[in-house]
């Protein structure tokens, strides 16, 4: 526990103009190899929190540290190149092939062609896409699931230690979503990543993450393991959030009990 956190927020606030702050003095640590899910409703500030990490947004107050360094003291572009990012709604470049999309950060980092090509093949395999079929396709020719697999491959292409994911699987059908979630969790473990995933789906968070932070109106209202959240004495909103998955689980159990 004495190991320094990979990502840490210290009293971070973010506000635009005079309105109520989007984030209000948030403090949160993410440890190495941890899979943290940030759960909250729309407008709770969860996406803002994520973007502060790779400086797509700068904080109004407080300090964000990545691997111990204050991100304000680091060049934003360099920082982003060493942090993977999976965008909400895929965010692939429509004029580039799958291979070019995946190899974009390595290319920006100046890798040579052979290195990039080999990396693309490895990554396609890692995200379970067919090398021959998908390599030279354009994003418009992919299904939603395939597109998000490419999105994941692009995020981890330059071998980052940290991956940020903004509602990565939100737009997918339940089966695909489940499969990709599982696959990502496997990658997270195999590659020793530190992952931060944003979601509004508590069930997804409970099933994938090591730890869940619940954010509401710019404040962290709960922070703990799935187990702790399921069983702990929580504030009203968190209890409500937990109620749905719990009810679903009970119904499923009831259904299987009744079976002959």
């Amino acid at each position, binding site marked *: 526990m004495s190991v320094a956190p990979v990502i840490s927020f210290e009293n971070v606030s973010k506000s635009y103009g005079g309105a109520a702050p989007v984030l209000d003095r948030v403090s949160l640590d993410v440890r190495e190899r941890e899979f943290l899910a940030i759960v909250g409703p729309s407008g709770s500030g969860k996406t803002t929190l994520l973007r502060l990490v790779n400086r*797509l947004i700068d904080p109004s107050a407080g300090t964000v540290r990545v691997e111990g360094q204050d991100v304000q003291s680091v060049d934003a572009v360099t920082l982003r190149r060493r942090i993977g990012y999976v*965008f909400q709604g895929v965010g692939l470049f429509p004029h580039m092939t799958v291979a070019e999309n995946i190899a*974009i950060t390595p290319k920006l*980092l100046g890798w040579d062609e052979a290195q990039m090509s080999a990396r693309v093949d490895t990554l396609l395999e890692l995200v379970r896409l067919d090398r021959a079929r998908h390599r030279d396709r354009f994003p418009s020719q992919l299904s939603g699931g395939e597109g998000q697999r490419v999105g994941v491959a692009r995020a981890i292409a330059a071998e980052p230690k940290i991956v940020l994911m903004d509602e990565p699987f939100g737009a997918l059908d339940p089966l695909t979503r489940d499969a990709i979630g599982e696959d990502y969790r496997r990658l997270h473990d195999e590659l020793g990543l530190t992952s931060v995933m944003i979601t509004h789906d508590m069930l997804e968070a409970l099933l994938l993450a090591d730890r869940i932070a619940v954010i509401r109106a710019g404040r962290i209202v709960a922070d703990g393991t799935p187990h702790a959240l399921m069983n702990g004495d929580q504030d009203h909103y968190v209890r409500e959030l937990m109620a749905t998955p719990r009810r679903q689980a009970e119904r499923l159990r009831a259904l299987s009990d009744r079976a002959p």
Partner: protein
Amino acid sequence: MNSQLAEALARLPAYLGGHVAVSATALILGLAISLPLALIAMRRPGLRNLLLGAASVVQTIPSLALLALFYPLLLGLAALCERMFGVGFSALGFLPSVLALTLYSMLPVLRNTITGLDGVEPAIKEAALGVGMTQRQSLVMVELPLALPVIMAGIRTAAIWVIGAATLSTPIGQTSLGNYIFTGLQTQNWVFVLFGCAAAAVFALAVDQLLALMEIGQTRRKRTWVGAGGLGLALLTIGALVPTLSQPRATYAIGTKPFAEQYVLASLIEQRLRDEGLSATIREGLGSSVIFNALRAGEIDAYVDYSGTIWTNQMHRSDVKPRAEVLAEMAAWLEREHRIKMLGGLGFENAYAMAMPRARAQALGIRTLADLAGRAQNLSIAGDYEFFGRPEWAAVRMTYGISFREQRQMQPEFMYSAVANGNVDVIAGYTSDGRIAQFNLVVLDDPRHAIPPYDAVLLISPQRVNDAALVSALQPLVDAIGVTMMREANLRASGDRNASPGEAARWLWNEIQKKR
């Protein structure tokens, strides 16, 4: 028909060369200015509105006017430059055309570049930053490629506009495919007019399609297509320019105003110079005020003007004097004020004259303008675009108290048949026009000398005043051409007789020599 087509084809290298040179330069310059400007304006809303507003205003100026405006502007600049640095530049032809067309090409490129870049989804731009691109890399690797189809559409529009508008650079002295159109209109050579329009259209379409090929090649990632398109454009440009560039530069430039008689006389001058072993080019179809300034500035070396024009437009005189006195005073004034040499009168007048069908005039008992005044309130008159605004018209009205039932402006070519067919009763025609005899019109006398004399005079630019070779080559033309001879030559050169200005000029020279 065939000979006209052959003549049109023979002129194609020179006209197309001029057209390509001016439109390619303008387009490249326009792109070089507009693209970076659009990129700068992208992140500055104030500048962006200003730019788009200014470009739109430019677009609303008729292209002909825009081209015409640049000539006096540059003339002033050139004079200033000459005075301050001792080096001037030519304000005629290429430079004003290029500048006006460049301005003209900017709006579509600016607007489409800005719209195209605006149209890139914010999510994609954020992804570009998220994967670690700098703003610049995002622009080059993501935003510009995604906006390319819209930007290319703007470039193609600009190309078509510029190639089309370049035909209008003829009146400010730039050789272009417009020479066919202007010459053709003035000499009723419809083959020329159609040929010019078709050539400009084919050229515009070819450029448009080659640009389209490059665009499709870019989006479909066919390098060869992009290459083929670029190669095609390069070949088109070089192919059109080589004949012009490889031609030796002529020593003398002769100007013409935009009508048949001027084309014939310029051809005559050119042939005289060639016979004496000198080389000359003709700057066709210059506007009336452009041509005098061009001579004064030495951009052309010689041209034929008319005494009445200089008298009223340049000397600002409103009194009317006999022919000989006007010529003498004018020669002295040109020499004194502008160091322009008046070599002499050619021997005929091309004055404004009221004309009507002979039979009609006899039936109404009209012989003079005074007779006409009594009848005019029931008659209609047609004149060219200039006439009713000119001092001559005011003088005629004042002197004779004439007022017509109706006055109409017409292209001079259509005036004569209009009066012959009875569409109008009287026209303000030109005394040396061949169609006066052709349509059996009678020119009404001007007993009170309201209309100043319009002797054709040969003018030489200040720096050629002491050019003995030029002067001796042109001397035989002085006082050598009578009005009947000129009318016949003009008639030959306008449309229905199938003779080119060059052929009419040769006929004229033969007649001149016969008379000797």
